[in-house]
């Protein structure tokens, strides 16, 4: 039982990170009906933004998070404006968007390698707030790392703010309307361009926070953009386009991974993510919470 609880706790931590990434991805998908395959690079940049804010610029810990959020949001919006919008304007086929996303992520990832360098960076513990330094907290046989607690807390706060924003603010409702039907909302006076920018910004910002948290838990390195695959799988698992689905999928994915890792072997942990994907595609491609909808011709 103790093993079980321990794995549960570990799973929640990594699940929180997945959730932030997956929700960011799903948000853009639900509006644009399109997968931003450069999402991973935004996550990675967020980690670097947070890292340098904390170390080179000596900013306080919470400010570093804001820097990561806004920095990544800005990158995501830039990506949208410079790479995706021109394609959207000329109604380019779906394929062009994916290729451009691939190009953008290659560009960003290798720019970081060429400038900052490929060696991983670790968040120096002495720059972290006092309560994050020190030994893991213990409750009986349960051992919870302080950083894991921070990850969970930050994720919960961020996602709660997101939900409040989407459900209760005017802008949030505008996003919902546009996700439902872009043309109709435009006719109702909602500027689709603005909603698109907003959604990329929020998605990017969440990705940035996820990056910092991931960097704190493990390390910051250019190839960490590959983690985005987990967010795609989580989103498909929960149901593409559904935010609750992204949340649920992330938690379940992380828990399954952690249990496999704990009870079977760490080597095959990432492989299980792929197996879950395959299983979903076989059994229920629309995901746990997805609607089995048809495309309108």
């Amino acid at each position: 039982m103790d093993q079980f609880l321990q794995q549960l706790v570990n799973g929640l931590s990594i699940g929180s990170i997945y959730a932030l990434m997956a929700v960011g991805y799903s948000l853009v998908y639900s509006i644009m009906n399109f997968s931003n395959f450069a999402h991973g690079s935004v996550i990675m940049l967020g980690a670097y933004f947070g890292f340098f804010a904390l170390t080179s610029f000596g900013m306080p810990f919470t400010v570093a998070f804001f820097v990561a959020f806004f920095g990544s949001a800005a990158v995501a919006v830039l990506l949208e404006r410079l790479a995706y919008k021109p394609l959207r304007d000329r109604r380019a086929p779906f394929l062009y968007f994916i290729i451009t996303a691939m190009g953008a992520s290659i560009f960003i990832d290798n720019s970081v390698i060429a400038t900052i360098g490929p060696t991983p960076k670790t968040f120096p513990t002495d720059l972290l707030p006092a309560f994050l330094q020190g030994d893991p907290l213990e409750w009986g046989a349960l051992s919870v790392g302080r950083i894991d607690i921070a990850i969970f807390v930050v994720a919960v706060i961020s996602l709660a703010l997101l939900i409040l924003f989407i459900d209760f603010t005017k802008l949030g409702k505008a996003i919902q309307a546009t996700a439902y039907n872009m043309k109709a909302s435009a006719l109702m006076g909602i500027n689709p361009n603005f909603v698109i920018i907003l959604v990329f910004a929020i998605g990017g910002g969440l990705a940035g926070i996820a990056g910092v948290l991931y960097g704190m838990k493990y390390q910051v390195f250019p190839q960490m953009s590959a983690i985005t695959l987990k967010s795609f799988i989580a989103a498909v698992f929960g149901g593409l386009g559904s935010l609750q689905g992204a949340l649920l999928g992330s938690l379940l994915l992380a828990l399954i991974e952690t249990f496999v890792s704990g009870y079977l072997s760490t080597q095959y942990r990432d492989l299980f993510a792929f197996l879950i994907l395959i299983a979903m595609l076989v059994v229920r491609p629309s995901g746990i919470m997805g609607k089995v909808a048809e495309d309108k011709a």
Partner: protein
Amino acid sequence: MDYIQGIAVLIGINLIAVLGLSILTGFTGLFSFGHGGFMAIGAYVSAIVSSRLDLPHPIAFPLAILAGALSAALISVFIGKLTLNLKGDYFCIATMGFGEAVRIILNNVNYVGGARGWANLPQFTTWWIVLGLCIVCVVVTWNLINSRQGRNLVAVREEELAAQMAGVDVFRSKMVALIVSAALAGIAGALMANYIQFLRPTMFNMAKSTDLTIMVIFGGLGSISGTIAGTILLVSLPEVFRNFAQWRLVIYGLAVIVIMVGRPQGIMGGVELTPSGIRKIFAARRAKAKLDAELKAAEQGEVA
């Protein structure tokens, strides 16, 4: 001379894989993040057949290549059946996952060397074999594209719904493209294993997959001669820019964006560098000029 031949072999090996991706992405419009995985399957199966099984010399290599290609093709059937009936995003995500899964599995199988790699594989690949197979693959690709099956692939790329309404079995067409591209990647992997004589799973990660796709894009989607040109260019370029190795990929990434936004046709502009291909362009220009002239005359006739 050896140095140039070495590059030529690498060009040849890559070309075979890139031809497959050209069929899949350039002509059918499907994007794969994981073709490195198919190359890996071809490479490792070939390595097993050529070095672990004690087969007589003349048939060992051809058998190895065949085994590599077939294994890759078979697995691609599995991936295709699951995802090609769904929206495009699913196929992309599945190929991404697939590439990673292959790498992880290979990392953990000690029989094939695991993460540390597998060295001392037999040197079977020669320049002549690569050249021969290249020619065969180019001809096969060309014959496929210039047939009703090939035209159906392009129809799927252009307007999937209209293609269905024109009686094209879209799912089957996509499967054909996927299987052929996987088989070609498998062949390339097999050749590579027995040329470099060393295999390591990281050689086939997503960077390899995207490298291959970039070659298709630079050459131009929908042009076989473009694919050949793009591959020659991008495989020889790193040698030229050895000093700026780190920035090579930065420039490629930027170039891809610029190409897609500015000139998706790539180097060749969707055109084939063949007599018929060139004739086509001139015919198109002539016909357009004629049409414009007629329209103008009609307008002026109305005004008069």
